């Protein structure tokens, strides 16, 4: 009896053991991820192409609306500090008075620049490790690498101009020891930008093979940006060799020319024209799931929002109290009767990019415009080149001739024959006078465009050029033209503060001395 019980116990214990073993298969835990990984992706040219597009897509973040995230469009960060634009909307970037390291736009701009930077770094890493054997088209391989370098260079360049001593991140961050990058020092970021743009200029094509590639960066864009970065370096270091290098690079910006009329640069139907050297492509995916200008572009599914936002140039009620941007009195005076005026502002406000009222150019939707921001026009290159010639000790006449090219096109832009702006006499040799001409020409020609004026003022201040030409300086009597009282520019405002949030998250990071 006892024996029988024991046998049957053994049997059932064995049976349950077998059932147990069968009940759960350990392989049930090994699930395939819902997304591809860096291990199994990037096996084809097309996948590398997607990786490159992924970097580009970050550029739109600096231009789209994001109204739902607290109306955190970022245009005022680069547009309002200068002396061309003011607004009766209460922006700390205009009056400087309430700007704090905890300002959200300071943080967002910073964040997006590093996301652009990281996407480029990640792709460069993958490119180095996995591209061999993948490309059938070896030219495309170079072009892709050129684009990655160019876009990383652009993040360095912006970071230097806005934040000065922000961290320099030049590689994929793939382990914990790399998470906390300390401040860069001095001009490290600008040097890195020069190096990336220069490297890109050697890889990129002069022209992409057909119109389906329209909007991708070119050799010319890379040389243009490399030259610009070198020129900035020359300005702040007062160094002739940097100017010379810049000049060499400007000379390599080939295949571009001024369009016949100034206004053609700012309409949607003239995007990516022959004068456009580097242009951020904003698009219209309104008919597709996911276009939602109220969210960050990566907060919504499908494409994300790929449209730009020019609402600040308009004054429709729907902008929730955000007033339009206005030209300053000093800029209006500077324009005088220049025919370019009619493309830049009218009695209501600034109209560049948004000719017409609400809905204007692009889509009939307040928060979603499709007109591309022009980051670098050939006119900009010509004026930079004039400056490089002048500052590197080249022929003043050659520099003046370049300025006159711009002025001549300005005259042609008018619908009626005009004589202003007249050509400058090419006999002038006083460097200060010619520099003043360049400064003033850049101000008019590039008015309201993408932070040019503010970046120029900064570098000319740092390089002592404003003091030399105007006997005034940004912190000494410079007329910013803000309609706001109080207004208070101090030297710390040459840089944005390192974001307060970031200081909390990165123990190795320090604030600018002036912002402490």
């Amino acid at each position: 009896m006892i024996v029988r019980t024991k046998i049957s116990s053994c049997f059932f214990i064995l049976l349950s053991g077998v059932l147990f073993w069968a009940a759960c298969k350990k392989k049930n835990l090994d699930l395939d991820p819902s997304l591809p990984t860096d291990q199994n992706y990037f096996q084809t040219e097309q996948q590398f192409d997607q990786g490159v597009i992924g970097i580009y897509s970050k550029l739109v973040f600096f231009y789209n609306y994001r109204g739902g995230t607290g109306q955190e469009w970022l245009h005022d960060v680069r547009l309002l500090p200068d002396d061309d634009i003011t607004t009766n909307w209460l922006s700390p970037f205009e009056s400087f008075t309430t700007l704090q390291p905890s300002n959200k736009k300071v943080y967002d701009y910073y964040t997006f620049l590093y996301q652009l930077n990281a996407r480029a770094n990640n792709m460069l890493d993958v490119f180095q490790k996995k591209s061999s054997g993948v490309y059938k088209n070896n030219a495309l391989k170079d072009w892709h690498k050129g684009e990655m370098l160019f876009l990383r260079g652009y993040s360095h360049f912006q970071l230097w101009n806005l934040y000065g001593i922000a961290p320099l991140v030049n590689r994929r961050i793939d382990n914990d020891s790399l998470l906390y990058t300390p401040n860069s020092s001095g001009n490290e970021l600008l040097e890195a930008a020069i190096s990336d743009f220069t490297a890109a200029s050697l890889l990129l094509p002069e022209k992409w093979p057909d119109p389906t590639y329209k909007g991708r960066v070119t050799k010319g864009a890379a040389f243009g940006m490399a030259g610009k970065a070198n020129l900035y370096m020359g300005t702040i270091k007062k160094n002739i060799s940097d100017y010379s290098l810049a000049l060499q690079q400007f000379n390599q910006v080939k295949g571009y020319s001024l369009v016949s009329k100034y206004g053609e640069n700012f309409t949607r139907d003239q995007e990516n024209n022959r004068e456009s050297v580097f242009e951020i492509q904003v698009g219209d995916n309104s008919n597709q799931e996911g276009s939602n200008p109220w969210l960050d572009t990566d907060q919504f599914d499908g494409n994300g929002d790929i449209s730009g936002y020019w609402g600040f140039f308009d004054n429709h009620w729907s902008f929730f109290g955000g007033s339009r941007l206005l030209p300053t009195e000093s800029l209006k005076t500077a324009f005088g009767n220049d025919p370019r005026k009619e493309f830049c502002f009218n009695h209501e406000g600034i109209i560049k990019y948004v000719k017409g009222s609400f809905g204007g150019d692009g889509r009939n939707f307040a928060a979603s415009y499709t007109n591309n921001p022009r980051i670098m026009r050939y006119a900009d290159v010509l004026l930079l080149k004039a400056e490089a010639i002048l500052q590197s000790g080249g022929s003043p006449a050659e520099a003046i001739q370049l300025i006159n090219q711009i002025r001549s096109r300005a005259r042609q832009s008018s619908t009626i024959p005009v004589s202003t702006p007249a050509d400058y006499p090419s006999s002038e040799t006083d460097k200060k006078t010619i520099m003043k001409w360049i400064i003033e020409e850049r101000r008019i020609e590039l008015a309201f465009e993408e932070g040019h004026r503010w970046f120029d003022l900064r570098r000319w201040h740092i390089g002592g050029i404003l003091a030399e030409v105007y006997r005034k300086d940004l912190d000494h009597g410079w007329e910013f033209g803000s309609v706001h009282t109080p207004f208070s520019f101090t030297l710390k405002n040459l840089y944005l503060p390192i974001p307060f949030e970031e200081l909390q998250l990165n123990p190795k990071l320090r604030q600018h001395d002036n912002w402490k």
Partner: protein
Amino acid sequence: MLNKLRKSIFLLMILVFADYNSGLARESFKYYFEQSQRFQNGKITLVKALKTIEDHYKVNFVYQKKNIAGKSVESPMILDQPIEKLLEYLLVPLNMSYEKTATNTFVIFLNTGLDVAGGYNTVTSKPTDPDLSHGKKSKSSNKLVAVSGMIIDEAGKPMSNVSIIEKGFSNGTFSDSRGEFHLKVHAPLSTVEISYIGYKNQEISIGQSRNLTINMAPDIKLADEIVVIAYGAKTKRDLTGAVSAITSRDIIKTNALSPQMAMLGRMPGVYVSLPGGDPNAAPIVRIRGVTTFSGESAGPLYVIDGVVVDEYGSRSTFSLNAQKAEDVRGTQNIFNLINPADIESISVLKDASSAAAYGARAANGVVLITTKKGSEGKSRVNLNAFVGISNLRKTINVLNTEQYVDVVNEANSGNPDFNDPKYDIYKKGKSAYLGNNGTHDWQNAVVNNNAAYSSYDLSISGGTKTSNYYVGAGYASQESSLKFNNQERYTLSSRTSFKINNILEIGQTLRLAYTNLIDNRDNTGVPITLLNVFSTPPWQPIYGMGPNGFSSVGVSQYGPETKQNFMGVPSVTNRQNDTYKLLGSGYITLTPLNNFHITGSIGTDYFTQREMQWSLRTLNEFEISLDSGNSIGETRTTNFLLQKRLSVNYTTSFSNGHYIDLYLHAEDQKSIFNALIAGRSGINDVDDPDLFSLNGPGASADSYKDKNTFINYLGRVTYKYLDKYYADINVLRQGSSVFNPKGYQWGNFPSIATAWRISKENFMQFLPVSDLKIKFGMGELGNSDTKGWQYLTLISNANAAYTIGGIPVLGAFFTNYPNLNLTWERLRTYNAGIEGTLMKKKLDFSFEYYKRITSKILQPYRLPASVGIIELPFKNIGAALNSGFEFSFNYTNKFNGLEYSIGGNFTTIKNKVTRLNDNIPVSTPAGLVVLGDPINSIYGFRSDGVIKTESELNEYKKLFGNSPLVQQLQMGDLRYVDIGGAPTPEDQKAGVRYHTVPDGKIDDYDGLGYLGKTIPGYYYGINMGAQYHGFDLYILLQGVGNVKKQSELLMNGLSYRFSNKLSTVLDRWTPSNSSSDIPRAINYGASSVNNSRLSDRFIEDASFLRLANIQVGYNLSEALVKKLKYIERCRLYISASNVFIITRYSGYDPENDMVPTPRTVVFGLNLSL
């Protein structure tokens, strides 16, 4: 009202106390009496005794006079004990027995001399010498005598594992598989105690009998005492771990549609936060503090009849983040889909040992819901119904139009920016002036007065010896406290089990639910809340000549200062949710040997939801939210969980009193989530959304999917010795698919719980304690709530398009920063307690101390922006400590036909972050996690009143150095305390966020001050019940304390931005009201920014005491019920919940300012057939 309440609480306490004293007195009197009666002959006639009993217990005795005559019994009798016991006490010595023949009738007869069990619920043993049983109980005269016996259940079948213990000694045994037992006792004066779960305890005097047959009777009352635990049940006194439970009687009292609410205020250690007036919102439930940093992964795991119920995304379990899942599906309380009337009991497993069996995700407690099943006997029909209304308790005082215009003008004055024509609406004399518009009460417009609330359910249950069934059906509907939502629910449930033969048993549960939810929202798709509505400018009209009788539906009517019309928008948009849920399980149990069971079970939790939304284009104002034409969207989500389990259970007992229960299982869980989103916009000229087709221009579609799996192996040994010493040992090994397969998927989690029933020891016998137990347990559990595949670098194609050649081209990017080492979060729990029953079982109490140490907390954390990734990576980031006490008691007594009870529970929580990755604070949706502080605390500036004098102003300006703010600061501006400055490297190393020495500057670092904790320091509940002649009363008070809340209401209502303001701003600082501490009206520039910074000005004490429920019922008298044929029981009641709240919090409700919890009054009926 309050005074009355206080008075009645006081009275009740006096009653309890008085009774406690008299109880003690009686206890000692009895002792004295028992001592003295040996020497005196205080006897009365049996006839007289029976008469007394008849009167006292309201029963009738039937007997032959000749049997009774001349017999006498000892006096006095103790009347407050079960009548059966008393009769036994009286009759057994007289060689008599009784039999209960009807509810209140007992037949008394002389024993015939046969050794038989005596009828219903009773046992007689036959002492041959009646005098002996009343002789001296002295150990010296005792000798050990072997007795044996047989224990049978109500069906006459032998029962095994029944415990037989001699009273007052430590010898005992269990019945074997044939129901037989052998025990040596100190006969003949010995008494043995016989007990088994679910059966009435019996005490039998052995007398001269050596062979007993004992009939066990199921104890319906005792069912309360049985606590459902993981894969089994125990009587309360056998519990070793920390478990609280409530049964259907309590659950039905809450009149809530969601079962979680039944736990409110009823269980120590269980915190339930009311979800507000939206019928669809889920309450927050936390067990013994908050052990992890964020989200619902800090909430408990819910298990219904053994099936894990997990709402996708609600615990951030999957690779999509919870917010996104919520966006896709919408918020929903899936427990609304379970009809509380179907629930038999809810157990909350609080410590590692109790919860271990549920493995993954059980770390933060398990809420075990067991539904009703049928029992043997005739079919029972139950009908429950209630109808009622709910109303919000309060609205907030805001400015009228005149006051509003004044304040706006004062706030804007002095800034030329406000000369813009759009501000003409505030300028007297301008044609656009709105000051004469009258005042429009937006709050009352959106509040749903007398919101309807009703529920009806019907159930039928019954069974035979081998099968049972329960079938229930219900319908409920509830309107929100605001006019925008309401919900209807249909439920159907069934539960059956069949014993095919001695070896095979099968069973099944199935519940179906359908809810329809109308969920109207504002023009950005966000739910409309009072927090949005209260600040609508008072001059903005609600009704008018616009569409559907509203003044407008969009935002533009009066320019940019207009808010959207919260009443008008829902008239042109609509959103509806249909949810279908199927929760089911089935099992087969094989019993090849006695006490050896093999059970295989499969459970599924499946729910699918269809959300429809559409918007009608009506006016230009609407172009903001709708670009053109009508739009329609449809979202379908599917949530599927499949759970397979194989378990083996073996119990055995030894004749020397040891008992062992061995349980092993292997379990496999798989969860799958799918979502399909489709929509179309730009549909013209169709007003009926049902006519839309998704096919056409502007159509779009998207989908999500996700899955995860778990494997659990569990071994559990339950050991018991003589109902005195207990131990439970669990070993759990579990694997989760979310971690790296290379060594991080598996975790081992042991736990142990022990108990000592000290009251069973001899040295405790002299104390007036019925039961006393000391317990201790410790153990570990794991939590794996994280996104999946964090160990990989994932590539996404979504959201990364760029325009090339004029068309959007898809991009790809790295979404995350991988963490290869991500693994289980571990929770170690310690539990120590004492619990017992005093005062002849009238008072239960328990006191427990708990400590919960979480380590390797899984948490998304922020990397520096310079790393450049979008998704927050997960990491085992820190550690936290929760500890506290739980105390609960329950007292019941009778007093002249009044039966009353009072119970209470009190829980404290101390909570601290003890370790944090690189000492960097982590922000979570619930707050900020800072080393050394309570989890999710509030931080900000410390305000110091407003600047009232010139000298104060000049002094304060110095703190701003060269800052431009200096030019704008004025008297009437808010002043902050300089608490410190930028941290030194030493501070950073120590995890201190700012250097705590004032640096003479007010800057961002002064905004890092600790302002309060968001997790209550203590919470409590008090319940009182009374019954008197068919009437019953039930009161539940509930409260929390030591908690702060950041009031959005104050932040919006005290700012001078565009929006209506709280009427307290009328007392703002002005030159003529210079003593006020409310800052001056200013709407621009640095001062405005300065005054509206997050500071303690917006932090309020959110402690409260709430009268959660009061219920008065009446049971129709039996006489009346008998006349109504077929009706067994009929009770009518009226019940009010959330009656009042005592709090210092100034908003709508300290728990919810969005859609506050209303006061609900219902009238209900419980009917049994």
